[in-house]
Every structure is written in structure tokens, then in C-alpha cells.
């Protein structure tokens, strides 16, 4: 069974600084997607970034980038130039590619950005 582990329940960072959230996963599959989702205090979950396992290049979306280490089964999220609006719960998630299957989430990391 696939599992997703986020070992940092809470993190904090000062505005404009950089922070990295960790995620590891376990799977025997070779084709899969990895995601980072953000859940602000208003509760609506939104997609931050997606990585396809077959792509070696790390995904980036503006201030958000990932460090995808397939052999180590590690998928960390780096937030650069942190903003107050980045305060949220962040969830790492996994699903198989090319197949319809369940989307598995980690336990989440609560990020607080301080002024």
C-alpha cells in the first residue's frame, strides 16, 4: 500500500524568508503523481504544485518549487520569499498515474508566516 509521511507537524518562517516542507512516500510503482496542496484558514483546499514521477526536472510555480528525489522517495516543497498569505496547512499527496485510483494524503504541516 502507498503511504505518505510528513514529519513536520508545524513550522514557522519570517516574511520574505525561505522555508522547506518535507514529504516522503512509499510505493512500488514507477509511474505516479505527487502533489502539494494548501489549505488556508478559510478551509478551501487548493493545488500548489504537481510533479510527474517520470519527469526528472523539478516542478516550479512562481515562488513554489519542489525537490523531487525519486530514488529516495522524497518530495519537499520550497517556498521562497514567504508571504503572510502562505500561512496554511500544507498536505503532500500521491496517486498512481495512467490509472484511476485513490489520492493518498499525508498528515499535513501547519505553516505560520510571521511579519
Amino acid at each position: 500500500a502507498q503511504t505518505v509521511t510528513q514529519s513536520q507537524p508545524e513550522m514557522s518562517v519570517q516574511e520574505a524568508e525561505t522555508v522547506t516542507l518535507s514529504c516522503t512516500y512509499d510505493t512500488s510503482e514507477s509511474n505516479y503523481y505527487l502533489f502539494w496542496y494548501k489549505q488556508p484558514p478559510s478551509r478551501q483546499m487548493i493545488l500548489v504544485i504537481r510533479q510527474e514521477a517520470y519527469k526528472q526536472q523539478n516542478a516550479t510555480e512562481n515562488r513554489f518549487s519542489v525537490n523531487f528525489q525519486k530514488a529516495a522517495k522524497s518530495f519537499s516543497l520550497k517556498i521562497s520569499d514567504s508571504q503572510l498569505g502562505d500561512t496554511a496547512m500544507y498536505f503532500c499527496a500521491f496517486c498512481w498515474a495512467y490509472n484511476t485510483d485513490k489520492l493518498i494524503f499525508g498528515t499535513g504541516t501547519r505553516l505560520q508566516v510571521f511579519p
Partner: protein
Amino acid sequence: DVKVTQSSRYLVKRTGEKVFLECVQDMDHENMFWYRQDPGLGLRLIYFSYDVKMKEKGDIPEGYSVSREKKERFSLILESASTNQTSMYLCASSPRLNTEAFFGQGTRLTVV
């Protein structure tokens, strides 16, 4: 604008009641999911559906059932609500290959 809508943001029900949580999506997505979110436990999958009338158990299906009679609607049913089902419930939908899931705003259910 894509949308997943859950029928209620807050619900209070009594122990033993039958509870229906409704979710509607307007994106013609094949997949729909029901998750339960509890502090420290993340999102745990209750059930998912990959087509009309099709359903698969997730990690914690006990005490729940689902219904998907139409593509756009996925209902979660608590046959006999219990206090340990007090939680936040999130509905999501995604296209068939799960390239991105879209979430509803969540329903906070309290069972007293």
C-alpha cells in the same frame, strides 16, 4: 470557474440519526472522493467513485456508505451517526487520470 459544492458548511446531528452529506461538481469529472479530516491524522479517504454507480472503499469506510446516481453528484451517508464521526468532511473531484483534484469548502459535522 470550476466548482465543487458541499451542501452544508456546518451540521449538528444527534446520535443515531441518518445523515446525508451532498457534493456536486460542475466539471464533468469522472472521479469523486470523500475524505475525513481530523487534527494530526490528515485527510483519510472514506470512499471514492470513478464512474456513475461505481464505488470503491477507501481506508476508513466503516460506518459510511455512498451513492452516485448521477455523474455530478456524490453523496456520503452516515447510516446511524455516532459521536466518533464528529469531524470535518471534504469532498473532491478529479478527471479520470487524477491530474488535479478540486475540493469543496468542507462540512464540519458535530454529532451530539
